[in-house]
């Protein structure tokens, strides 16, 4: 009779390299060491290479004189300001074009999304063609098209610029509008605006509380419009219109004074808005289609009119579907605004990672700062949208 080995009491002993925990730890240590070594090697190479090419390191260069002009700046700037100042000039220009782009892309995108669902065949088809054409053509190509083929080829020279009532001029250098100059007493208008905003916020809170408790509705929208818009206008007239207009005038080869909008800003904002609107239109359409038809029927059965159904039932639910992809479209728009160097719009990439980098040669610091800015903007937009998404999302038990 063969003896059956008694395995019952024997502890199962696996070799250490077969132990999953040990293997996981070992693998992670190896990966960590490899990454650290890789970064150290890259860093070391960079130090050696930079020394050999005579490139300085550190952020001292930010205080040096820049010595180059920038086409457009929202803050005071000339050649004597520092490299650090060019960073902020570029950053503000990026923010400007992104904000304009996001605003128009959202408006046009929502219109397109609704238009594609219209029961009017013509409107639906026009919107479909728009979306299919625009989103299948590279954005860079569209930017170049608007800038080179549309604006630069068709606009006149400053001497024979398009003249609208001697106040508004349009030529190849840009669009010139009269600029408002606040005079003494204008701060009252700002104060009225501020009071309007604060009081309408508290009014909304009060109205919501009253509706929750007593069910009485309050015309929230028109009251807040009156407070935010009406109050400053009233203040403006009461103070005797404390503002004058600075009209652009032709001096030498170009216009001086007023507000100047350069063609590259127009082309970039236009292309970004039109391109992103196509994507937002698709998102909005999907969001509205995602709300089941039973909701509309139920709302109609409750006696709500079409407009009320849309405003109170469909849109709040559609927004839940729309917001997450909408956020990533906004992020894309901000990142796409970095195509500006192609048409010479002085954004962060074009000014700071372009001219400043070429002049100072400090590639590592400048690229790191630029990428840091985009990462920060991404994080800010996505955390804001996450917060809003959470606020709008379904309250479940």
């Amino acid at each position: 009779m063969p003896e059956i080995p008694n395995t019952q009491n024997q502890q199962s002993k696996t070799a250490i390299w077969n132990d999953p925990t040990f293997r996981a730890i070992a693998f992670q240590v190896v990966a960590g060491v490899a990454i650290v070594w890789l970064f150290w090697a890259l860093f070391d190479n960079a130090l050696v290479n930079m020394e050999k090419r005579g490139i300085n390191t550190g952020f001292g260069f930010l205080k040096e004189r820049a010595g180059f002009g920038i086409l457009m700046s929202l803050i005071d700037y000339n050649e004597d300001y520092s490299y650090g100042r060019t960073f902020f000039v570029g950053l503000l220009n990026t923010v400007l074009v992104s904000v304009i782009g996001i605003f128009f892309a959202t408006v046009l995108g929502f219109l397109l999304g609704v238009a594609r669902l219209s029961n009017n065949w013509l409107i639906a088809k026009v919107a479909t063609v728009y979306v299919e054409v625009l989103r299948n053509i590279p954005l860079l190509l569209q930017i170049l098209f608007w800038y080179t083929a549309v604006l630069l080829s068709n606009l006149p020279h400053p001497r024979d610029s398009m003249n609208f009532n001697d106040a508004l001029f349009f030529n190849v250098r840009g669009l010139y509008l009269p600029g408002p100059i606040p005079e003494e007493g204008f701060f009252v208008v700002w104060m009225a605006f501020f009071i309007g905003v604060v009081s309408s916020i508290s009014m909304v809170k009060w109205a919501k509380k009253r509706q929750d408790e007593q069910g009485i509705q309050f015309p929230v929208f028109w009251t807040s419009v009156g407070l935010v818009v009406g109050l400053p206008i009233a203040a403006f007239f009461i103070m005797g219109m404390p503002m004058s207009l600075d009209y652009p005038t032709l001096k030498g080869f170009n216009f001086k004074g007023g507000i100047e909008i350069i063609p590259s800003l127009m082309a970039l904002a236009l292309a970004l808005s039109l391109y992103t609107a196509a994507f937002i239109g698709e998102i909005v359409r999907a969001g509205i289609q995602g709300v089941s038809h039973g909701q509309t029927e139920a709302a109609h059965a409750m006696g709500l009119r079409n407009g009320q159904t849309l405003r109170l039932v469909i849109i709040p639910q559609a927004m839940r579907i729309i917001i997450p992809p909408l956020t990533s479209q906004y992020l894309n728009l901000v990142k796409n605004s970095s195509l500006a160097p192609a048409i010479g719009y002085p954004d962060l990439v074009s000014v700071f990672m372009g001219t400043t980098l070429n002049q100072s040669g400090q590639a590592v610091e400048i690229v790191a700062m630029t990428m840091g800015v985009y990462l920060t903007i991404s994080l800010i937009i996505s955390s804001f949208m996450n917060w809003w998404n959470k606020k709008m999302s379904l309250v479940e038990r």
Partner: protein
Amino acid sequence: MSKIFVPLPDLPPPSSTKGIVGWSRENLFSTPLNSVLSLVIGLIVLSAVIPLLNWALFSANWAGSTPESCTATGACWSFVTSRLDFFIYGFFPTELTWRVDLVFLLLALSFVPQFFERFPYKAKLGIFSLTGLPIIAYFLIAGGVFGLDPIATNRWGGLFLTLLLAYVGIVASLPIGVVLALGRRSEMPVIRTLCIGFIELWRGVPLISVLFMASVMLPLFLPDGVSFDKLMRALVGITMFQSAYMAEVIRGGLQAIPRGQYEAAAAMGLNYWKMMRLVVLPQALKLVIPGIVNTFIALFKDTTLVLIIGLFDILGTVQNSIQDPKWGNVSTEGYVFAAACFWVFCFSISRYSQKLERKLHRGHKR
């Protein structure tokens, strides 16, 4: 005798509800507001489309190869036709363009059968187009072996460079994306953190800054004597960028696989890599094919950005040609041509992806 009830024949529908009249009453003029909108938009569309067609087709110049042949008022397509070789092959030596043509042919041969439902060797052909084709194409284009003249990468350009960038981008970013996606879902904290950091870093910055970094900073980080040419650096940048996006798409697929599949595979005694290779990834990748295709379309459009770091893709060649003062102002024609090229590619790929999505959805919808 009872009378049999014979119903009267059905009346035809009222003439106002059928045919073109009925259709337009329902779809264009259903309410007063709709009627006004239809008329206004119809007028706008007509006033835009008629001059456009007139410019692009009826009064356009087609023949000739010199600026002088553009006499009509419409578009000067002779600019495009005379520069077509440049737009397609870039600076590639004219007598050697057959090598590029051969690559185009191979590309077509390995992709067109995929559209036919009944073609038997789809999977094998797919593997060939992802592995063998790039190698053959590289040796055909770059040369240097089998008696083919070597062609430096700075002479590559035009449409074929665009296709090459997109193709290499997709082929290289798929495996890296799979590894990153697996790493992001790993239970090992160090690996997970590294993968999340990598993915979020690339996704948070614009491609243009990645390309700038690749062209300006990469040489600084490399040890002495090691250097890539400009095209290679752009490819590295595009691949890194794209694999982060690819990883997120694949992660979506991995998350959609129910836990039971992992547990069942583990119960069968499969180790991690076998579990992924045999059970999880085949299901996950199939789920996200539409997402991968969409990423590919985005990548295809993004290849135009290499123009900014000085490579001549199709947009680069167009941009270069329209600056030729000899031709006058032909920027619109050039851009329209490039846009049409991209549009045809992207639109057909997206249509194919929608078809695929419908086909693959059948099994999963409950």
